[in-house]
């Protein structure tokens, strides 16, 4: 195989990526077009109606955008108190030890569990628990979904944060210790500031994960097409309304679901792009 042919071959195969990504955008945009044309783009985004009575069809994405943002936000809040300690455990306190390797294996395995099994666990174990605590009568809702989502994103946030915490130069840490700082002070005043942008970006990527998580949320959020009034209310996320209704939908409802898919795609693409750019910057610095 000549060098020239080899180069061309690699180039042609690599064209798959722009084709696939372009194809995704094209397919979503053309099939979402009906819904946007029928309701108007901004109306669709801001309407909270979702009714499929024949002749009086009304579809709006607001409840699901809200549901997605709420589950993601709470998942992030619940995830930080666990992922940050894991990152410190693996990247600082027990860096390079066997016990740290065991904990990273455990978090890796957590990341490997399929989302449908998280959903089952949430449904059969966590939901009765929440009912028993009298937090909400049916046990499903934003809170239940967020709690399980939080467990699911801990591994992502933790392993990436740990990577940045590990990269903090020993020179700096020894410098701080030589001035009389305790480990807690070194972590707060040296490790976090130096690794800060990297840690931050790992949470951005964790958010990217949580936004699109489908089965877990579908099984736990309660599947009601309203804006959740509080953390214990039921609702639907963008991904879960698609999972719930895509199979039975046609015409305008199908187009509306695809439009929701397009919005979700754009949001996650944006979040991931920011996260990746920040990570690249943090790695260079």
């Amino acid at each position, binding site marked *: 195989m000549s060098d020239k042919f080899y180069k061309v071959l690699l180039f042609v195969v690599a064209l798959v990526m722009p084709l696939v990504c372009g194809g995704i955008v094209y397919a979503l945009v053309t099939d979402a077009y009906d819904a946007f044309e029928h309701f108007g783009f901004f109306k669709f985004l801001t309407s909270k109606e979702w009714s499929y009575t024949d002749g009086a069809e009304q579809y709006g994405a607001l409840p699901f955008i809200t549901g997605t943002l709420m589950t993601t936000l709470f998942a992030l809040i619940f995830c930080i108190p666990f992922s940050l300690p894991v990152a410190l455990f693996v990247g600082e306190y027990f860096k390079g030890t066997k016990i740290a390797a065991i904990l990273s294996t455990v978090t890796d395995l957590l990341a490997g569990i399929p989302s449908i099994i998280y959903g089952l666990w949430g449904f059969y174990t966590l939901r009765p628990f929440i009912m028993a605590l009298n937090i909400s009568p049916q046990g499903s809702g934003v809170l239940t979904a967020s709690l399980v989502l939080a467990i699911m994103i801990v591994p992502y946030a933790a392993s990436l944060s740990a990577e940045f915490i590990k990269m903090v130069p020993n020179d700096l840490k*020894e410098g*701080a210790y030589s001035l*009389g*700082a305790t480990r807690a*002070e070194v972590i707060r*005043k040296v490790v976090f*500031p130096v690794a800060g942008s990297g840690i931050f970006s790992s949470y951005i990527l964790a958010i990217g994960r949580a936004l699109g998580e489908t089965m877990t949320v579908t099984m736990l959020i309660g599947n009601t097409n309203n804006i959740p009034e509080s953390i214990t209310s039921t609702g639907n996320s963008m991904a879960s309304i698609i999972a719930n209704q895509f199979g039975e939908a046609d015409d305008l409802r199908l187009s509306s679901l695809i439009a929701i898919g397009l919005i979700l795609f754009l949001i996650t693409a944006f979040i991931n792009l920011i996260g990746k750019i920040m990570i690249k910057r943090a790695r260079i610095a």
Partner: protein
Amino acid sequence: MESVTPPILEFNKTCVSYTKQTMAVKYVSAAIDKNTITAIMGPSGCGKSTLLRAVNLMHNLYPNIRVDGEILLNGENILSMEPIDVRRRVGMVFQRPAPFPTMSIYDNVLSGYVLNGIRLSKTEKDETVERCLKSVALWDEVNDVLNKKGTFLSGGQQQRLCIARALAMKPDVLLMDEPTSALDPIATAHIEELMQELQNEVTILIVTHNMGQAMRISSKSMFMYLGELVEYGDTATMFSNPSDERTKAYLTGKMG
């Protein structure tokens, strides 16, 4: 000539070991006088840096390193003291200059206070920064860019900033671990000059690879070989008339 004041720092059968079998520093005993500069020399791997780092209890950061014997600071054994207390009284400057990259020059000088959670008033801060930067001869060069990050400075300036950072805590002893090995000759000359002036404020213990440097700046010298303190005495005497064959071999370049 014997000094009248008691030694500020005293090693008493100090041993440092990384594993049970291998001892990096073996039964070192020596007394260091106040306001002197003592150079620790020896071929690489002889334990000189290890001994120096033990004075700042740096080995406490690494659980497998053991230190035995005594190291007395003003008569108190630091091995049984709280590390954070010891390290405040013993400053350290490392091989590679490493100012905190997220802090300004100003904050770098004060970083010891920030790290120790000691609050200073604005005037105290300003005074400390000016005093310390002046004593490392950096004030004139940086007094108009104090809010810039310390990492913007040149290597020599960064190292002086690190010395200023250590001096800000008003330590009794300043440990320097080959502080000029990463610097160019001009920056090195600056730092050497600086050490001479600092002698009045602080007792300096410096590990150096460079015999010329030891001769130029130190009044006392230690020669270590394979973890043992082979010879300790006046620098001039050691260089002109070493009492041990191994010292002689090292100083004449037959070992290194």
